[in-house]
């Protein structure tokens, strides 16, 4: 059996961090979609998705990033992606995600990116 999918959430300051573990495919993507929707419903628009333990992603997983990023950016937030394993990274790259998404090496870097001048500066509770 492949290791299944797991998702954990935490906050770093006003940044919501979602960590993805295992495989994100058409079967598990709805859980990821619900987690992002939850954050938005809770007023969190600054989201980091930590992919360090993520071993596989298919277009169903990529579609979740794709469908939320515009709305988050309109609300002065963003989805930053970090810690991609090489195999997952190449799936992001082959579709041109690196040009549209902010992809960082580490979680710290991704969280800090929200405070850089070109990023959104509106804070939240």
């Amino acid at each position, binding site marked *: 059996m492949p290791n299944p999918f797991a998702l954990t959430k935490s906050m770093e300051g006003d940044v919501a961090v979602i960590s993805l573990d295992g*495989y994100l*495919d058409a079967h598990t993507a709805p859980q990821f979609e619900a987690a992002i929707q939850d954050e938005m419903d809770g007023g969190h628009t600054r989201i980091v998705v930590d992919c360090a333990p993520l071993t596989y992603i*298919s*277009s169903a997983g990529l*579609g979740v990033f*794709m*469908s939320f990023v515009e709305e988050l950016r309109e609300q002065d937030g963003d989805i930053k992606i970090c810690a991609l394993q090489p195999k997952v990274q190449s799936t992001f790259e082959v*579709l041109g995600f690196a040009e*549209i998404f902010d992809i960082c090496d580490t979680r710290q870097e991704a969280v800090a990116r929200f405070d850089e001048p070109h990023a959104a500066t509106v804070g939240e509770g």
Partner: protein
Amino acid sequence: MTALERKFTLHVPSSTENLAMIREFVSNIGTQAGLDARDVGKLELAVDEACANVIEHAYGNDTSKDVVIRATFDADELHIDVEDTGRGFDPTAVKSEELDKLVAARKSGGLGMRLIKTLMDEVRYEIEPGRKNELHMMKRIRKA
């Protein structure tokens, strides 16, 4: 490696729950065929996308239907066919949108067929709606 052709077939119920199993099947065959880890990864992803499309689009998530994956390889090429008996479609009528357009339109889909075409060396649909729809994919086995 022998010149003999090897054949493998997997039938599973049409449910996304079985995608993990399909990927393991395919990655075992890819490794056995002599693909390197990168190409095994590409094969796995292309077949996942093809089967996810069958489960969602051809069968509209009717889990009483079957997805069939057939694989053969020899020393030079690995062929994988994904077969369904679902509604079928006209693949030439599906236009591939750029990523920035999809993002602007807040789409969550539209990447699968592009991925399949990018990842495989040959991709061909044979559509007979309700009877048999097949997606033929081929990956060349690069000599190390």
